[in-house]
């Protein structure tokens, strides 16, 4: 491909030079036969010029196809790399949760329950201590009432918090952990699917781009062959026309 690409300009220069010489030779004829010939020659010139332009375009299209192939393949490779990372991440999260996270979340919920139970026991003990403290107290009746009311309320809140912690543990054990596991499994499968799709997309794209470049090269080669053919044809014509002229000029 690169040898074709570099040899084209030299070939075209020589071709255009031949065409110009041929045109200069034609200008010296003057008969009606000569007029018809001139017309033919002009048509040949036009065809050659059109082919030359097509050749230029084909070269640009080849360049474009190569550039597009380069960019799109790079993009697809990046997508594939991202998909690999995503798949790895999903796998680590799933495995990490199974190996560590599941037990930690369960322990956290159990600790929460133990803490709540301890807090409720502390609140009950504090209330008992305050009740004992005020049992012999005759003077600070209002303070006693306020402090004991507050302490009883604290105990009630602590008991409700304990109930919530118990329910939380049941939820965690019952479905939260299973749900999370399934969610992570689903994410892992989805990421693996994404990775596979990205790999396939890259392979497909590479093939498509190879085909596109090959087509562009093929078109370019065909045009070059046509131009060469036309140039040879014209050279032959020009040689024939030169012989006739010499013969005419040689008659008495």
């Amino acid at each position, binding site marked *: 491909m690169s040898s074709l690409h570099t040899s084209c300009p030299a070939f075209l220069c020589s071709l255009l030079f031949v065409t110009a010489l041929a045109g200069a030779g034609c200008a010296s004829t003057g008969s009606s036969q000569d007029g018809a010939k001139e017309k033919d020659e002009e048509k040949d010139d036009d065809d050659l010029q059109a082919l030359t332009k097509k050749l230029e375009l084909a070269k640009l299209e080849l360049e474009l196809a190569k550039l597009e192939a380069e960019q799109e393949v790079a993009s697809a490779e990046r997508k594939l790399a991202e998909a690999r990372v995503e798949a790895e991440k999903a796998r680590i999260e799933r495995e990490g949760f199974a190996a560590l996270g599941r037990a930690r979340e369960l322990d956290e919920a159990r600790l929460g329950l133990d803490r709540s139970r301890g807090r409720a026991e*502390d609140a009950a*003990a*504090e209330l008992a*201590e*305050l009740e*004992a*403290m*005020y049992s*012999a*107290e*005759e*003077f*600070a*009746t*209002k*303070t*006693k009432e306020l*402090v004991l009311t507050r302490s009883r309320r604290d105990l009630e809140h602590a008991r409700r918090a304990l109930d919530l912690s118990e329910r939380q543990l049941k939820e965690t054990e019952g479905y939260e952990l299973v749900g999370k596991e399934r969610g992570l499994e689903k994410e892992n499968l989805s990421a693996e699917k994404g990775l596979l799709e990205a790999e396939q997309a890259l392979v497909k794209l590479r093939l498509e781009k190879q085909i596109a470049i090959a087509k562009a090269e093929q078109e370019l080669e065909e045009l070059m062959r046509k131009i060469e053919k036309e140039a040879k044809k014209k050279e032959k014509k020009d040689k024939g026309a030169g012989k006739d002229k010499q013969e005419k000029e040689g008659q008495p």
Partner: protein
Amino acid sequence: MRTVLGMGALVLVLTAPAAAQHIEVPRTLGPAEGREALGRSLDWLVSNQNESGSWACGVLDGLLELGFSIESFYAWQVASNALACLALLDAPETPARRAALERGLKWLDETRPPKRGSDWDIDYVWGGLYGFAAATEIASDPRFAQGEWRAVLDRIGRRYFAILEANQIPEGGWGYYDDPIFSRRPKWATSFSTATVLPALERGEELGWVGDAKIRERATRYVGRCALPNGAYAYDERVIPWVGGDSINDVKGSLSRIQVCNWALHSVGEKKITLDRLREGLENFFEHHRFLDVAYMDPVPHEAFYYNSGYFYLFGHYYAARVIELLPEAEREGWHARLRPHLVKVMREGGASTDFLTSSYMQVAGTAYSALALELGLPPEVQGVEKVPEKPSQPRR
């Protein structure tokens, strides 16, 4: 307790709105009622002494004081033991009280001095303050001023003075917490804790326990700088004291500090604290007493109006009694008669008093404060055993 009050001269009943939450109290109580109440509190002290001669326990004995350093409970035990000894010293002597006092003093002599509890919690200073103050007063009593007892008190006085010497902040006061950046010599003090030892420092110099008079001078200046134009004493020394609104530095938040600071400054010769200033402080104490009543037995410090705490109550009444003793003799009984109802009304059936929590050290300290306040207002009894001589350490100014 209600029976005791019923025996008093029920002339007037306090009718302030905040006091309405509490039981009705006669405006005054005479020496007889005071003596009866004192007897119960002294009986409680005698009968609640430990085998070792100590009172209370040196460890956390309730859930409501979690968070302090372990050592602080021991320091408070030491401080409350010193107060209990003082209460027995000032009591009309009986063999049981004398024996309890001697056992208490031996324990104070033999027990180790408390140490700093943590970086921030230096409540061991309370051991220093009351250990030293008690030693100076007991050493000034002729019964203990000579011989072996003098040697015992020398040891106690010097030991607890060492705590004070190490913890006096550069500005001159003593406190019981330190702030970051924590330092060997703390940086925060309060007016009232510093005031508790001013007269004792002077006496300690006379006894030869305090070598440097500048310690007392710096402490006196510290307390003096806490005096506010409204007659109150700032909780602690600040460049710009917090005043106005419901500040603790309002007179209503300073009722007990006014007594201890006035007593201390007047006792060491501070001329600004005139007899009229003492009277004004006492008048404020009784006029606004409902703010101490409301805070009484509230287990959350500084929760009441003007940031009053329950433990201001008995502390303040003890020093109010000491202020009264600085006034001319003729007017003292009138003030003591107004003070007694507030001590008697909070005394429990068995004779114990506490104003904040029922931790063992609080009960010992509260009962001792109450007994001391009642003792100061009672004329000397004719003793069956031995007459208690007048102490030379009583206020001289």
